[in-house]
């Protein structure tokens, strides 16, 4: 029993990273119906930016420890937001009026391009991420957690709340919601659609970068291929929760983390990825719109 509770908690931390990334997928899909497969690579590049920044801070002898990490994280989020906007501008905007499959294939292409550019310039080697924040373990009863795990959960949840506030309470959020319902009508109402879409990419990319840096700190290992598996799984999380729905992505992320951890805990570690996809298929069969999705019939 105690082991199971510890496993649930392990799953929660793993899930919070998937949730953070799933938000980016879901927002972009919600607004322009595009599955941005390059999202996992933004997460990877975010962690590399953090890696170089923290290492530079260390060599210059400034911003020790936790401060350095948080400042590096903010810079990395800003830089990745910019990268997200550039990717959207160069790769997706020219295809806005094309078929969806064309945009999807471009997204896969961008994903490979970013991976290979990183491999070309920075070698495919795994690098140890600087351990800017010393790890401390806490025991609460029989359950043990570390300050880094709590940091991951704390930052993920606060970013999700901030995101929800931006979408629900600000003018930009209102514009995003309007564009997602009907792009043309939004434009007629005076909303700058291109700017709104760029803003969406910037938000999603910043969240991915934060996730990348937290994972770097947690596992102490980053490499140019690190975005592939989490990227795919958080895409599954977004679909599971109901793609296009922000709370759904968060829920889906936590669900995937829990499924993965529990399948390992129950002795099915060989099949954990298969189980994740099996659950996805089952959900899609019984609730095609995802857990939180509403079943709306499209008019033909």
């Amino acid at each position, binding site marked *: 029993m105690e082991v199971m509770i510890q496993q649930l908690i392990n799953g929660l931390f793993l899930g919070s990273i998937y949730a953070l990334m799933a938000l980016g997928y879901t927002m972009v899909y919600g607004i322009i119906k595009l599955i941005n497969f390059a999202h996992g690579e933004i997460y990877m590049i975010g962690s590399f930016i953090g890696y170089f920044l923290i290492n530079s801070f260390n060599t210059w002898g400034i911003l020790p420890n936790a401060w350095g990490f948080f400042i590096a994280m903010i810079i990395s989020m800003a830089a990745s937001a910019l990268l997200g906007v550039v990717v959207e501008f160069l790769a997706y905007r020219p295809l806005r009026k094309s078929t969806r499959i064309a945009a999807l294939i471009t997204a896969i292409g961008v994903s490979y391009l970013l991976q290979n550019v990183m491999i070309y310039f920075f070698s495919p080697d795994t690098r140890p991420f600087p351990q800017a924040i010393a790890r401390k373990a806490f025991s609460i009863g029989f359950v043990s957690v570390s300050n880094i795990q709590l940091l991951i959960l704390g930052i993920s949840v606060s970013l999700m709340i901030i995101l929800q506030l931006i979408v629900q309470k600000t003018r930009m959020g209102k514009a995003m919601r309007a564009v997602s319902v009907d792009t043309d009508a939004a434009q007629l109402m005076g909303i700058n659609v291109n700017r709104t879409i760029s803003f969406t990419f910037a938000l999603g990319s910043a969240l991915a970068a934060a996730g990348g840096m937290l994972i770097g700190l947690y596992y102490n*290992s980053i490499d140019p291929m*690190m975005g592939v598996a989490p990227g795919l799984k958080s895409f599954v999380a977004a679909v599971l929760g109901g793609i296009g729905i922000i709370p759904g992505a968060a829920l889906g992320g936590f669900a995937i983390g829990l499924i993965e951890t529990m399948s390992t805990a129950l002795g099915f570690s060989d099949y954990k990825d298969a189980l994740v996809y099996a659950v996805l298929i089952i959900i899609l069969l019984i609730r095609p719109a995802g857990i939180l999705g509403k079943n709306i019939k499209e008019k033909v």
Partner: protein
Amino acid sequence: MKKKFAFLFASLFLLGACSAGPSGGGNSNGNSNGGGNTQEGDTIKIGLNLELSGAVAGYGTQEKEGVELAVEKINADGGILGKEVELVIKDNKSDSNEAATAAANLTTNDGVVAIIGPATTGASKAAIPNVTKAQVPMITPSGTDDAITVNGDKVQEYVFRSCFQDSFQGVILANYADETLSAEKAVIFGDNSSDYAIGLTKAFESAYDGEVVLRENFTKNDKDFQAQLTKIKNADFDVLYLPGYYEEAGLIIKQAREMGIEQPILGADGFGDEKMIQLAGAENVSNVFYTGHFSALAPANDTVQPFIDAFKEKYGKEPSTFNALAYDAMFMIKSAIESQDSADSAAITKGLAELKDFVGITGNITMDANHNPEKSAVVIGFTDGKESSADTVNP
């Protein structure tokens, strides 16, 4: 009508060209007796087929350094039989298909008389059909799977290694757990996606006298091991056996130690990379042991110290196991050429198969009937990320 005939002739001609290709191509620069490539001119061409980029670039790069140092020394001392050694270097990108292609290129296009590499088991196996077809011998410095040199009951005629094989390492580690660590209960946490780790697990299980209380698996490229380690932590055991490569091993050691798993961790030569310690964090690498082919703390003979000095002078760092194994591989080829008084592929193959009492950095090597070197192993122990013990263990 004319057109049709022309087409027919063209296609017949093309078909003919296709079928003529392979039969003529394979042996074009081979000699009449024994096959393989012959040595020509004033140089002896040796091919390198190594992982210089990709997932296990760490191994390949280190082996290239080892071979280059050896070649520098050989050429400075007047070469082999008065001829200079020339290296032809190919990167197999840590990919099995690329390794097979590189082997074919080296043997047919570059006409090398022998090949060193690949570094890993999978890539080595992939290269075997091409070197066998070309009848050019290859030495893998670190491909440890048993099935590399022996396929079923049949010895691979052109394949050798300078390292020992997995079954041997698994047995050494089981003996070490039994005798030195007096461990009665073991947990096996292995990579079930690589032949290397599966072979190590099998050998350990059959040789270990104690009880295996729990078996857990991971897959290459996993980063999160919390779930498995939570289970392991709650098991009652004396030693954690961890067959796998350094990338995952580093992460597992970090996560295990942070979780409070204090038991000794045993691994094989796949741990042998500086990255393992960097990924785990030096403070976490205590009470960790792995089989090495070579340790500066337990030198096999008096060739070791000059090698370490020369290596430090050239590269400004301590030599690793992979540097040493590749260095030995090059000198094994030299020894084979000298014993046969010929640098042709066929002669080198014969020389390697008959290699006896070769004095190498990684031990005194005699080739057994299965093309595996007979030598002793070193189990290296770590405290705070530094080598703190080295026990020579005989099989």
